[in-house]
């Protein structure tokens, strides 16, 4: 489990127990029971929003619309259509989830503020439709919605309290379960660095849609429960006010944590029931508090309780490298690992890569060199699915991958590192590697952990396992990124300027690492400026200049090529 979730996992049972005790002790206090019932119902919607905001970094200002969809479905079906409550509830949740999928797809095209505005517009459009649609009561809404019936129990008053909180408890535990596993690692990776997540095998688009669907379904459930308890539904209930209330709950409690959403819902839920005599003042106070929390305590109330994330700086002596005793990779195909033919990539009028063609042999280490701006990284991006090429094809082990998303290419067995070492900063070193193993293989979390540890040990990085990536010095960031790239046993590895910024000792280690990886049968393509390194380890060197391949051969040949000398030294040839 991701370290960030430990506190959450501990806090949830305590919180729920606390709520239960309050419910028993104060069961005769009608106001309390009512306020606590709504708090439980709101908590469900807030948990969904919290995952969306805090776990996949997607803002939605349309949560109230999903609430409204769930609520209206139940309201209509249980009155005009004479359905009983439970099937209506299921329909409400499914309908809200469906709209979650739709908004999820729309959300793929927007970022940040734009997404916020687009979802807000969705909210307002829904409220407008609720107002106009005569079938669901138009501006008046729907009244006399019957209470839900569970066997002989009528769900109102105290039973409603238990109904709300048992549902909230189930949702809380379900959400925690979702975050604990493969999906949790994927979400956390996306939150940290979307591009790096994609390249390490996380299907970021699918994850975002899942998160939107889940958040939509939970908001729909919340609405479906709300109408049965309150007995009426009006078009303004799921307005922007409710959206902001939900947002407040999540921000106040702590974005991304389930317990935070519960704490926030309790706070706001109680204030909205008991604070009517302070209208206007209460909302002004909300405004002030939310700004203060975001600026001064981004972790929210839960963050304050939990304290600062445990971070351990680099400690202990570096562990010795464990020499690889692993069997060489078995090649499952007799195609060449990488064939690039006629690839051209333009940015506006600039031709970054100009009709480049080459093929790599299995188990070789090829270096791609060339002056800055020669198009080396652009070519790498094309191979790993970042940005479309204008013409040409790329085949990986015989499979044409043009137009593929990076995570699909990664899943073929292609590892990659970035020039600027893109780690998941708020995850530990071990979690960085585990996230990739889980995304790329079918192994369970325990096996992924073992595999990640073993990979770290092979690179002599085991002592850093529990260090957060953001605390690593630059050289070690690169090596952790390399570990992440090879942990799922890729057979093609793209390494972008691994030696830049490393000292002499680190360069020696890097050289050993690369040779060891090649020794296992991995085909490596290396972009590098360090000529000593390039010339000493490469089986073959390719030179790129202004997007064109100007030389290709063994180190010895390249060293004496007059064109290459001209490209590097600026001598007219």
């Amino acid at each position, binding site marked *: 489990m991701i370290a960030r979730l430990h506190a959450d996992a501990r806090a949830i049972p305590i919180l729920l127990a606390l709520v239960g005790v309050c419910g028993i002790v104060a069961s005769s206090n009608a106001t309390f029971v009512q306020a606590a019932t709504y708090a439980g119902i709101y908590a469900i919607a807030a948990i969904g929003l919290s995952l969306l905001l805090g776990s996949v970094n997607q803002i939605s200002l349309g949560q109230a619309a999903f609430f409204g969809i769930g609520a209206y479905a139940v309201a209509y079906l249980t009155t005009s259509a004479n359905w009983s409550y439970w099937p209506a509830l299921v329909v409400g949740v499914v309908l809200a989830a469906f709209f979650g999928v739709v908004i999820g797809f729309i959300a793929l095209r927007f970022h940040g503020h734009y997404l*916020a505005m687009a979802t807000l517009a*969705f909210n307002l459009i829904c409220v407008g439709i609720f107002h106009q649609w005569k079938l669901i009561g138009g501006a008046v809404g729907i009244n006399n919605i019957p209470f839900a019936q569970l066997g002989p129990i009528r769900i109102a008053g105290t039973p409603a309290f238990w109904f709300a909180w048992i549902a909230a408890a189930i949702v809380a535990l379900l959400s925690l379960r979702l975050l604990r596993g493969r999906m949790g690692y994927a979400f956390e990776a996306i939150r940290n660095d979307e591009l790096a997540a994609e390249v390490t095998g996380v299907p970021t688009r699918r994850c975002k849609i899942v998160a939107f669907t889940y958040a939509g379904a939970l908001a729909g459930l919340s609405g479906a429960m709300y109408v049965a308890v309150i007995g009426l539904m009006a078009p303004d209930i799921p307005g922007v006010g409710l959206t902001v209330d939900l947002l407040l709950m999540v921000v106040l409690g702590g974005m991304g944590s389930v317990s935070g959403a519960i704490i926030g819902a309790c706070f706001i839920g109680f204030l909205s029931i008991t604070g009517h005599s302070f209208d206007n003042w209460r909302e002004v106070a909300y405004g002030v508090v939310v700004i203060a929390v975001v600026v001064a305590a981004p972790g929210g109330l839960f963050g304050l309780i939990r304290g600062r994330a445990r971070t351990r700086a680099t400690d202990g002596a570096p562990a010795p490298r464990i020499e690889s005793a692993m069997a060489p990779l078995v090649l499952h195909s007799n195609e060449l690992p990488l064939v690039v033919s006629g690839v051209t990539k333009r940015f506006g009028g600039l031709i970054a890569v100009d009709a480049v063609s080459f093929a790599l042999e299995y188990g070789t280490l090829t270096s791609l060199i060339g002056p800055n701006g020669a198009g080396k990284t652009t070519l790498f991006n094309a191979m790993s699915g970042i940005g479309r090429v204008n013409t040409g094809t790329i085949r990986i082990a015989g499979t044409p991958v043009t137009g593929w998303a990076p995570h699909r290419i990664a899943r073929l067995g292609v590892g990659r590192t970035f020039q600027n070492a893109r780690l998941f900063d708020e995850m530990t070193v071990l979690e960085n590697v585990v996230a990739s193993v889980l995304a790329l293989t079918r192994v369970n979390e325990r096996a992924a952990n073992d595999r990640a540890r073993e990979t770290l040990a092979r690179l002599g990085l085991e002592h850093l396992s529990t260090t957060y990536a953001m605390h690593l010095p630059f050289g070690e960031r690169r090596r952790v990124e390399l570990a992440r790239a090879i942990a799922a046993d890729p057979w093609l590895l793209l390494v972008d300027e691994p030696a830049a910024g490393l000292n002499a000792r680190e360069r020696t280690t890097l050289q050993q690492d690369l040779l060891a990886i090649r020794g296992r049968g991995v085909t490596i393509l290396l972009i590098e400026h360090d000529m000593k390194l390039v010339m000493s380890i490469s089986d073959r060197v390719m030179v790129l200049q202004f997007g064109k391949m100007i030389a290709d051969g063994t180190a010895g040949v390249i060293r004496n090529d007059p064109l290459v000398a001209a490209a590097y030294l600026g001598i007219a040839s």
Partner: protein
Amino acid sequence: MLQLIVAGLTVGSGYALVALGLHIILRATRIINFAQGEFLIVGGLFALTFVEVLHVNVWIALLGSTACGFILGLVFERLILRPASRCSEIALTIVTIGALYILLYGHALVPLWGSSPHPLPAFSGEGADSFAFGGASIPYQSLWVFLLLALALAVMYAFFERTYFGKAIRAAANNPIGARLTGIDVTQTRAISVAISIALCAFGGTIIGPITLVGGAGGTAIAIKGFVGAIVGGFESPVGCVVGGLLVGIVEKLLEGKFEYGLADPLVYSLLLVTLLVRPQGLFASRVGVRD
């Protein structure tokens, strides 16, 4: 038809100024200010205060309200935007929603202002005075709105294109580090940008006030319609923002004329989704790959 278009251009002037204000703040701080519409409301209320409490001429009230908007903008930047400037994009969005709440519910607490809208005296003659033109009856105030909008835009253009300080603001918005290296005080230019943006809103709230009434809870809707205008016209282009805002006003009034009252707003909001999906850079911005 002409009647509706004039009415649309009148409210659209408000949206246009909100859109332009959003553009200026976005350029300077990378923030989209969800509270922008509230400043339009509060600006109208400033003018109301000048007229009702200080009994000054409505022209003085316009100047006063614009000046108050400028000062409020400085306060807003210093107390809310600047402390939050290091936060993530999501956090910034939330911060401006917090500001929206403070302004929306805070203005209702002020004795004279309250939570219901008030009439504001027209700039010439009686509020309802209008003249017939091409079969439509056009309020004189609408003419004042167009004239004053044009004046405000001319002043903005002159300021940003012709003065040293205006150029410094644009430089700082384009490349804060580069601007800092050439000796521009980026913190200051940011504050001034926000203040100008808010002053524009206060100005807009005052000029359309005699027609739309001032005060009330319509600020969020105005902010979103201003945003729709900015998106439709193109967020990166000031001209696009203004034209987009006017366009949204016209579309809104035409739809109101055609359908029931409540249906126009949702349709206007769907314009936002449609534009974002079909032409995310807007009608006027030509830059490809704009992404924020």
